[in-house]
């Protein structure tokens, strides 16, 4: 079947930046600040924008006095849920001019393309649905968020445990508008206080949500426990002042060295780092894919989905896919057939989820594709001549040397004899592993986990996320809480230390 692809103009109109210089106001605890504006960006493809001078607002960012968290405990979790449900409704793209503006601007700033972005802005309200919020609350344990939960310990002690909120700084990623929403929801549910540092590849979305909160309920505790601002990562004048235990107790840092290296020098007792590192994701396709044409088609569709959806811009997207085709000549021929079908399917993904990449295939990767394509003893490159994406077939059982650079809808298929053969390639950078067929999941999931993988999914569903589930092997929400324990001990049930009771409580004789 001949494949027609859309010639890629790289969404050229969004390369230069919008007319005029847009403003990203700071939103600090119910107040919108849009003065003392300073220009940022404008280098290396990032658009120019104006934002309040961070040196002038840094003083206002933190809620210094921890007792100011008390107002969050005057509202119930039900009231928090009501607030968030109302916020979700208010964020509906159709009726929210601020979100419409953020969406338009994201066409310029985001690594993905307008059809994907519009869709993602339209569905942001889904993470605010009541049922989704309750599920998120359940992942922490509703009882712990609302009060003290009793546990009777061996040895006679009775403990009460409660999850309290913390004052946190969130350095969020900019490869999807939903991340700002998820951060705000997590902050509200845990009764925490958040300072969100916006990234340069999305300076507008978090602010647009925060401004909607101010429009909706300017004096509400949840509104008052959020600050959104932009400063350049590594700005020591801001960071030295802000990243201190008296201002911030936890830092949630998305992305890798760009954010973390600026942060690590400030980590000290009283300041905890929750690091959501950069990740690679892979897939495994079992031999069942080659049983017949229908199974080949299904496997190819699912592979294309894990590679192409979200334009391969997510940490969840697959870049290297290990395929049990066999490694002899017949095996490679099978693999090539799958590769051709994957390419076709990828070109046919609906524009809501996948388009030719913004800006085409980046020049460095293209130069790799050129060199790879002429070394046909070891490689075959399918597509890639029209900035649309490509599939690289490795004929040896190893990924291409430049596998860490795979992006812009370029994937590498690697042949295997047995599924277990790929286990040495799994490490802690490996987040999502898409597996096909389902029967292979049971065989592999323990081994994958021991090797470092963090999230095993049905092939094809890599981009289908649920924020209530563990992320990067962390229970992020539970990590965001401070788990406080109150222990009751009575001499008739726990041998007192002054009578010789040891470190680990025991019952009196």
């Amino acid at each position, binding site marked *: 079947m001949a494949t027609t692809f859309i010639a890629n103009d790289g969404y050229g109109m969004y390369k230069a930046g919008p007319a005029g210089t847009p403003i990203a106001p700071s939103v600090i605890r119910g107040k919108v600040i849009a003065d003392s504006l300073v220009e940022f960006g404008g280098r290396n493809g990032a658009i120019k924008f104006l934002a309040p001078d961070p040196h002038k607002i840094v003083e206002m960012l933190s809620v210094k006095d921890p007792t100011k968290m008390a107002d969050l405990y005057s509202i119930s979790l039900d009231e928090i849920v009501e607030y968030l449900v109302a916020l979700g409704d208010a964020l509906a793209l159709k009726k929210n001019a601020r979100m419409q503006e953020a969406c338009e601007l994201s066409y310029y700033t985001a690594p993905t393309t307008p059809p994907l972005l519009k869709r993602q802005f339209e569905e942001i309200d889904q993470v605010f649905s009541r049922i989704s919020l309750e599920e998120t609350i359940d992942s922490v344990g509703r009882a712990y968020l609302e009060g003290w939960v009793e546990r009777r310990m061996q040895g006679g002690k009775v403990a009460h445990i409660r999850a309290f909120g913390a004052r946190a700084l969130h350095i969020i990623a900019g490869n999807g508008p939903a991340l700002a929403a998820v951060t705000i929801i997590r902050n509200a549910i845990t009764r925490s206080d958040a300072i969100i540092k916006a990234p*340069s590849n999305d300076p507008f979305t978090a602010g647009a949500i925060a401004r909607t909160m101010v429009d909706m309920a300017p004096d509400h505790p949840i509104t008052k426990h959020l600050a959104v601002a932009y400063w350049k990562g590594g700005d020591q004048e801001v960071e030295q002042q802000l990243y201190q235990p008296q201002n911030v107790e936890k830092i949630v840092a998305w*992305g890798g060295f*760009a954010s973390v290296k600026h942060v690590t020098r400030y980590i000290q007792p009283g300041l905890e780092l929750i690091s959501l590192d*950069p990740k690679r994701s892979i897939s495994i396709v079992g031999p069942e894919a080659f049983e017949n044409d229908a199974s080949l088609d299904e496997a190819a569709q699912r592979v294309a989905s894990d590679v192409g959806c979200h334009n391969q811009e997510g940490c969840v997207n697959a870049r290297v896919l290990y395929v049990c085709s066999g490694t002899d000549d017949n095996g490679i021929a099978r693999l090539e057939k799958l590769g051709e079908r994957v390419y076709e399917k990828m070109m046919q993904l609906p524009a809501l989820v996948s388009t030719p990449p913004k800006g085409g295939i980046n*020049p460095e990767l293209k130069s790799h594709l*050129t*060199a790879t394509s002429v070394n*046909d003893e070891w490689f075959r490159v399918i597509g890639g001549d029209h900035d649309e994406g490509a599939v690289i077939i490795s004929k040896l059982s190893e990924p291409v040397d430049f596998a860490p650079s795979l992006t812009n809808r370029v994937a590498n298929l690697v042949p295997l004899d047995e599924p277990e053969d790929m286990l040495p390639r799994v490490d802690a*950078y490996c987040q999502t592993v898409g597996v096909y067929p389902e029967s292979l999941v049971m065989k592999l999931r323990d081994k994958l986990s021991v090797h470092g993988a963090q999230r095993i999914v049905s092939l094809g569903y890599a981009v289908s996320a649920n924020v209530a589930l563990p992320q990067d092997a962390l229970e992020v929400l539970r990590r965001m809480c401070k788990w406080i324990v109150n222990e009751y001990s009575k001499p008739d049930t726990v041998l007192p230390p002054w009578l010789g009771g040891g470190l680990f409580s025991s019952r009196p004789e």
Partner: protein
Amino acid sequence: MDKLSIGLRDSITDPTQYFGWSVTKMLSIPRAEIDKMQLDGLRLRFNELRDSIDVLKKLADKQNIKEITSVDDVIPLLFPHTMYKAYPPSLLQNNRFDQITKWLSKLTTHDLSGVDTEGCAGIDDWLDRMDAQSPLVVSHTSGTTGTFSFLPWGKDDFDRRIKHYTVMFFQKFGEPRPDDPIPNIHSLNLNYFTGGQMLLRQNPLFVRYIAGSPERFHSAVPGRFSSDMLYLAGRLRAARAKGEVVRDINPSLLERMRNHELQQKHLPEQIQEFLLEKSKTLRGERIWVLATWNVLHSAAVQALAAGQRQVFASDSVVLSGGGAKGMTPPADWQEKVLEFIGVREIGMSYGMSEVAGCYRACEKGYYHQVPWVIPFVLDPDTGNPLPRTGVQTGRAAFFDLLPTAHWGGFISGDEVTIHWDEPCACGRTTTYYDMNIERYSEKRGGDDKITCAATADAHEEALDFLSSI
């Protein structure tokens, strides 16, 4: 073959000889003649090499390119740097030098089938065998990304390349050449004598064409820099940055690695001791030194601290160029070097391993091209050529007409500003670049563009981060 084409062939294949070993002659032919020489030379190389170099043929067939009518026609055939490392890395890890040799042969016209790679113990061993059994002088890159790129220069081509450095380094433009173009000068090499990297491969030829004799070529470390050690160090470092574990290393190799790292740690000291010794034995003599700014600077700082100033003859020749990656030179580095050595200026030049062109900075502060290398400036994103007029800033690319046995087309990672039309006030007739040349890789995306996907940028940053601690 007619006289014209013999002349053309000589002008590009052995330009030093053709221009009579004179820098003045080399850089003062009228621009119209240069343009003609370049187009005719390009057509000559294309016709000879198109079907004789396997990967070139594939690339040309794929794009249906059968002839060259203007220089821009060759742009789709310029090799990106990735061409020189597009082999499966496991081949090198597993000492599959039979396969590596076979791959390399696809990048050259030379037949490498006669090279015996049986039982080859590592890269050092392989390079020795290639030196002994093939017409190539194979060189490789620094390996910091975890693997090597290999360049397949033919020995003859390489010899003809290095000759022109003699002329570039030691003659003053505008003046006639000296009777003996070989300066026979004491050469101070602040490094190992031999090794697999291009700058070490040059040394034996510098002995012939600059020092004139081995006794006048002084190396801080007279021995060989092991390519196996460099490769292993790069592999371990890159793996660390990627969070990977390298599992399959021979324990004896690891032991050698430990010793190697110890020696590397002491290299600055060793260079210092070497310079101290030469400052005694060659005091007042005319010397020549070529090194990156950071090596010269740290040597000068230490020498000055030890009271060594104006050590050598004032007509000595000090040459530098190119950035030490990621570091910024202090404002007074040149001053210190001049004070230590006793010369009045440092000659700067620009070049790269892949291209036979040493671009000296002229008196007006521009890097001048050599007539046998065709310059191109490309749009950094699309790869399309920018106009060959006026002043243009973009990605530097080249067609090196000198090599007869490999393809001279190359796309660099550098951003340059070229002056096409306005003749330089210095009197040289070739096109020229501004001196502020940066690598595109160092102009990476905005500081806080954050994405949770672990792309190569993340690893580049990891490498930089690890190397800074």
